[in-house]
Each structure stands twice: as C-alpha cells, then as structure tokens.
C-alpha cells in the first residue's frame, strides 16, 4: 500500500510538471490568464508530492518491506537503521528518485520565495524547471521504478554492498545530488532569461544564492567522496581521475566559473552572454556526469552495472535539454544587449582570467574523460590517467592560482597594477622563497614543488583583502571569499605535501617483526581471524610508534562478506597533526609471512580540511548575500545596490 502511495504521488507530481510547463508557456503571451496563476502553486505542490514519494521510499526501507524489489535487493533486516535509510538512495532507482525530489523541491522553493525577477522571466524559469523535471519523471516512471514489487516477498534482503556500509558514503550521494540539482535552477534561470531577454544585475542577484548553495554542496560532496575513496579502497590515493570522480569535478569547475561570472554581472552588468552560457553548461555537466556513470559507457574503478537501455534514455534527455538550451543560446544570445565594458587591470579583468582558466581546465578534464569514448569508435582502446591530467591541468591551474592570490586586491571598473605593486611583490617573493627552500631540501617533482610554493603564497595572499580594514565591519560575503580562497590554498598544500613527501613501505613480515616507514616503527604483533555480523576477516594487530613516542594500536583487516559474497580491504589510519599513517594488510605468502603496505603521508589531511574550509567560505558568502538581500528588499534603488556591491566584495 505504501509503495503504491509513493508511486501515485510521483505520477501526480509528473502531471503537475506538465501543467506547470503549459501554464508557464501561456504566461509568456498572457500573464493574466488563469493558467498562469496556477504555475506557482503547481510548482510548490509538485515539490511536496515528490518529497512525499521519497519519504514513502524511506519508510519502506526503514521497515524493510521485502515485497518491494528495491528493498529486497538493497537492504537487510539486520542492518543498522542509518544504513537501511541510506540504502534508499544507494542504488540506481532510489538515487534517481532523490534526484527528482530535490529538483521538484528546488522548483517549489523558487515558486515560494523568488520575488526579484520580473514575473514573465519567473514564469519562463518555472516552465523550464518543469520541462527538465518531466524528462526525469518519465525516466523514473518508465524505466526505473523504485516501488516495483516482487511476485513473492523475499525471506531476507540481499544487504547492501559492504563497500557502501559506511557513514561517510551514506551521505555522499545526497550531498552531490543537492549540488547537481541546485545547478538545474541556474539552468532554468538562464533559459528563462534567454526566453524573455532579461539579463542584468537583477537576474544575477536572483541566481547567485542558488549557484552558491549548489556549489557548497558540490564542494562538500567531492571532498567527502575523495576521503571515502582514500580510506575505503585501500590504495592510498585520494584522487584517481576516474570517470566517476571527473563526473563530479566537472560540474564543480563550471559552477565555480559561474559563481565568479555572476559576481561580475551583478556588480558591473558585464559578461551577460558568458554567464548565461555557463549557467547552461554547469547543469549540462551534472547531467553528463550522471549519464557517464549510469550508462556504464566508460570503464571506471567504481563498478556499476552496464545498462545501455538506461544510458540511451539519459542520452535522449541530454540531447533534448542541453541541445535545446544551446540552440536557444545560439539563437538568442546575440539579441541579449551587450553588457558593460571593462578594463583588463580591474577586478573584472582578474575574474575573467579566472573564468577563462577554469573553462580551459574544464575542457581538459572533459576531453580526457571522453577521449576513450572517441578512440573506441575507431576500435582503439585507451585509458587516460594522471600522466595526462596532472601536468596538463597544472599548466592552467598554477597561473589561475597566482592571479587568485592578488586579483581580489584590484578595484572594480578600472585600476592600475601600480597601486597593488607591493602586495604583488610580496606574494611573488614568498612563492620564490618557498620554491628555493624546497629545492634545497631535496629533489621532488616540479608539480609538487610548484604546488607548495603557490599554496603558501596564496595562503598569505588570500588574507590581503582584509588588510587595513576594520575586521568587524568587513561584510560577511567578503569573509566568505577570503576563507574559501584560503581553503583552496590549504587543500593545495595538502596535495603537494602528500605527493612530495609521502613514503611507502611494502613488506612481507613475520609476526613479531618490525618495519619502518618515515618516522614510524611498525610491529606486527599478531594476526587473528575475527567475525562480524555478515563477514569474517583476517585482522592484523599492529603497534605503531612515531619516533619514540607511545605505541598506537592499529587493526587493518581483509574482510570476506557473505550474501552477496565480496572481499574488502579495511585500511586503518593513525592521524597526527602533521600527517597520517595508513596501513593495509594483504595475503599470507606461502612461507607464512604477511604482506603489509604502509604509507606515511605528511599533511595529507589538509586536503579535506581545505575542502571543508572552501565550503565554509561559500556558506558565509551565502549568508552575507541573503542578509543584504533581505535588507535591500524594501530599498528599490538599483544604484544603491550596485554601489554596495562594489564596496563590499
């Protein structure tokens, strides 16, 4: 009964999306018609219904209703409640339902709170949102129904992939989806603005909170996903340039560019067509990523079922939405009046540089991800990995970060470099000094060396916009920018440190033997079999000493799960302020020795702390924007708003 309720709610929501599209279209001709008045309520109720449907699915998982195929396939009555619930979105059908739920709720939220845009643009935006949602409703209802029942209830569920029984991963997909789908709002805004030709600072200010919100979630999602891959896969790496990872990185790159170009549009009314373009591209990247992951069209270290049928469905949706939006862009962009001009030596100039670089990086990642697809058409099979992505990406990342260290010091409109000569010289000096220091310390790859130098220069540079100001009177949004830029520097330092200073030790040791890695001494005390509720494991008991400090107990495992059968490597980590010891146990060799793989990774944790700081900066910026937004609601003067905008960033 519950499952049928959920399905019914979804069908009604889909019908409302159709109504919303029709109403929005009618409103373009006749804003006063009855249909047009229905658009906002339709959006809101659609959001409520989709949310209801998802809650029903959560309920089915919570009570482990084994007559529902999805529950039987992905859950188990003995699982902890949190993983039962996480099972609801830890699979294809459920995650698609989550996708449409977030999308419908976002649409409802626009209908509820957005009052900035001209009514016509608003209607066009909601119609676009409904149009995109319809495709995903069709996809779920026709090809991946999460509420499908089994002919006979299962006796017991199949559990959830043990790799996914992890609290970090449980919240990884929802976080990413909030990000992906948040970008759908930016997409709808862009389409709405193209339809009504209303692109300007007001449009930018209406769009900005949505982009910021989505971007915060994407940042958190990528950070969490990277950490999960790091400790769960047991390979010691934190980023593999895997198609699945790239699928989440590409929307982030596009959203980052969009975030900055929206600021230019809001403050200076420049970059009109470019901002619209990025709005379309950002969500396109989200959909493209989903397509690449779901269709199994590319090989990935992440396993997933290859399903051409679903892939084709998503490809059709892609072609319809992205193709349609780009066609609209091509037809209309020329008629959107040209925005303001600006000088190179100005804040806008620096932001445009950032946008160009981000676009180039996005292009490089996209090409690298799709290249195997291209060559396969000619029957040549290749895989593209770090040897391509790292150096080619760095060529654009490094200059971008250098400009980022000093760009925020420039004024809007027109400035000259002479004025910021001193801070620029200072940052450059710091970078050179660090580079010289690293060169003296030892020989490392040029990428990590540059990374260390740039990260320290950027860390200092990111606080320069605050100099000489009363810290209590600095706007929240500016603090947000400072923290986010500092977070990038922190993460970069972690990455560079990890690749420059990591030490690895791979050894076959007997029980009682000790081995060295970096400053650590690790002793294998014993190896014992242990058992969990649905797995058995070989557990190594290690005691690790940093220098001559106290011994820490480490217990890496190699686990064997029953039902479904799977083996996993459970790595263990010992975290200190200056890095992490990472331990994995392998098989027993025929002579009785055990394989141990140990890494000492100095400052590796900064990678994820940096990611969290970036997201925190985004959050501060969002809070700051929303607060001034609410303050300005009454004041209608555009000029005042623009002046404020220029003053605060």
């Amino acid at each position, binding site marked *: 009964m519950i499952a049928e309720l959920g399905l019914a709610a979804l069908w009604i929501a889909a019908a409302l999306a159709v109504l919303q599209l029709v109403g929005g279209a009618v409103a373009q001709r006749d804003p006063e018609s009855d249909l047009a008045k229905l658009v906002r309520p339709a959006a809101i109720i659609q959001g409520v219904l989709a949310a209801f449907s998802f809650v029903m699915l959560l309920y089915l998982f919570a009570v482990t209703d084994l007559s529902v195929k999805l529950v039987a396939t992905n859950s188990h009555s003995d699982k902890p409640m949190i993983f039962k619930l996480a099972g609801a979105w*830890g699979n294809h059908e459920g*995650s698609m339902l989550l996708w449409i739920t977030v999308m419908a709720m976002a649409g409802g939220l626009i209908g509820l709170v957005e009052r900035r845009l001209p009514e016509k643009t608003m209607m066009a935006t909601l119609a676009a949102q409904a149009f995109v949602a319809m495709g995903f409703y069709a996809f779920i209802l026709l090809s991946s129904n999460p509420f499908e029942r089994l002919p006979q209830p299962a006796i017991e569920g*199949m559990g*959830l*992939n043990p790799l*996914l029984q992890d609290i970090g991963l449980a919240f990884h*997909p929802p976080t*990413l*989806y909030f990000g992906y789908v948040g970008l759908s709002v930016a997409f709808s805004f862009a389409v709405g603005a193209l339809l009504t030709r209303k692109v300007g600072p007001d449009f930018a200010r209406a769009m900005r909170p949505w982009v910021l919100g989505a971007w915060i979630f994407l940042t958190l999602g990528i950070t969490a*996903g990277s950490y999960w891959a790091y400790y769960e896969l*047991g390979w010691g790496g934190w980023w593999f340039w895997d198609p*699945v990872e790239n699928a989440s990185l590409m929307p982030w790159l596009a959203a980052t560019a969009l975030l900055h170009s929206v600021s230019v549009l809001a403050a200076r009314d420049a970059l009109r067509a470019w901002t619209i373009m990025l709005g379309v591209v950002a969500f396109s990247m989200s959909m493209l990523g*989903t397509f690449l*992951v779901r269709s*199994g069209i*590319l*090989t*990935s*270290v992440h*396993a*997933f*079922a*290859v399903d051409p049928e679903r892939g084709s469905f998503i490809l059709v949706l892609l072609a319809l939405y992205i193709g349609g939006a780009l066609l609209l862009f091509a037809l209309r962009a020329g008629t959107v009046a040209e925005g303001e*001009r*600006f*000088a*190179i030596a100005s804040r806008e*100039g620096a932001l*445009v540089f950032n946008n*160009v670089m981000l*676009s*180039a990086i996005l*292009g*490089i990642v996209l*090409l*690298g991800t799709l290249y*195997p697809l291209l060559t396969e058409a000619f029957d*040549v*099979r*290749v*895989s*593209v990995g770090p*040897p*391509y992505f790292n*150096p*080619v990406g760095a060529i*654009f990342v490094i200059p971008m970060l250098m400009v980022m260290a000093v760009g925020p010091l420039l004024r809007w409109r027109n400035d000259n470099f002479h004025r910021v000569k001193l801070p620029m010289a200072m940052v450059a000096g710091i970078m050179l000094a660090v580079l010289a220091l690293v060169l003296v310390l030892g020989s490392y790859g040029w990428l990590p060396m540059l990374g260390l130098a740039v990260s320290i220069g950027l860390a200092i540079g990111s606080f320069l916009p605050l100099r000489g100001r009363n810290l209590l009177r600095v706007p929240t949004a500016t603090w947000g920018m400072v923290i986010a830029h500092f977070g990038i520097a922190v993460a970069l330092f972690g990455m560079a440190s990890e690749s420059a200073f990591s030490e690895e030790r*791979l*050894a*076959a040791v007997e029980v009682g033997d000790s081995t060295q890695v970096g400053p650590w001494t690790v002793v294998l005390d014993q190896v014992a079999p242990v058992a969990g509720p649905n797995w058995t494991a070989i557990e190594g008991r290690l005691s690790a000493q940093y220098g001559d400090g106290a011994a820490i107990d480490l217990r890496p495992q190699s686990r064997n799960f029953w039902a*479904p059968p*799977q083996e996993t490597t459970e790595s263990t980590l010992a975290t200190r302020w200056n890095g992490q010891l990472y331990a*994995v*146990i*392998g*098989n027993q*060799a*025929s*002579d009785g020795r055990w*394989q141990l793989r140990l890494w000492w990774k100095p400052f590796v944790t900064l990678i994820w702390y940096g990611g969290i700081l970036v997201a925190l900066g985004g959050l501060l910026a969002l809070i700051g924007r929303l607060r001034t937004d609410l303050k300005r609601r009454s004041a209608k003067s555009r000029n005042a708003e623009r002046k404020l905008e220029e003053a605060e960033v």
Partner: protein
Amino acid sequence: MTDPKSYAMKAKHQRLILVVVALAAIIGAGFLAAYALQSEANYFYEPGQIAADPPEVGQAIRLGGMVQEGSLNTLEDGITVAFVVTDKESATVDVRYTGILPDLFVEGSGVVADGRMDEEGVFIADELLAKHDENYVPRELQDMDQHAPDKTLIPAEQTT
C-alpha cells in the same frame, strides 16, 4: 580617465586584447590536451596483441585478460607475485606485480593491469583492477566474456 570617449576607446581596445587572449588560451588548451592525449593515453592491449605487435619497452599500457589457472605464485620477497594473463586465443603474457592483490583477484577471473613491458617481455604491473563483484566485468573484458553482465543479481555498486 576624465575624457569618457578615450576611456571607451581604450576599453574597447582592451576588450579586444582580452578576447584574443581568451581565445588563444582556450585553443592552446585544446591543442595541448590533444597532444598530451596522444602521448599520455594508456593503450589497451590483450595478450594476443602483445604477441603480434609488442608495445615499446617502458611505454605505459593497460593489459586485460584472464588470469591463467595455476599460474599465480609469490616470489622470494613475499610481496611480488607473478602470474600469467591469457586471452581467448591462449596467447600468454607473464606479469609481475609488487603489492597487495586487490579484492576478488582469483585465478580464472578477469583482470586489468596498468603497467609497462620490460626488456625480457615481462609485463610489470603498477596497479591491478580485478572484478569488483560477480556482476562487474571491466568494459575492456566484455569481448572476452560471453556477454556484458546485465542487471541480473547484485546491486551493482553505486557511486554517485
């Protein structure tokens, strides 16, 4: 900056420079990426192809095939394993891998290895990707298996 006209002229001039620079950067990125892809992509080989047209020594390649039954053994140091990868035509390649074998690495099952050939014609693997679960075959191995596994059993691992 007092004369707005000259400012506009100057701005227009600067804008042109900017567009040129942006286009140059994007086009440069494109060419750079294309060139790097040519040289850095890992070509995929099956044992038969290695026998017929051996890759250059030291060039990064990806090898895919089946781990031959009974070929897996651990060398003296206890951490290097040697095994033989074979394909449908029963061409074989000797593989050495130093490290911990991935989960579900078993004889008779598919494997994809990243690495390079050495002078003796032995493939030195840096990394092994074994099948993740019963239902997953690396795309490169589908031709070797009878069919792409489809939605038959295990909830395939979802990662997004």
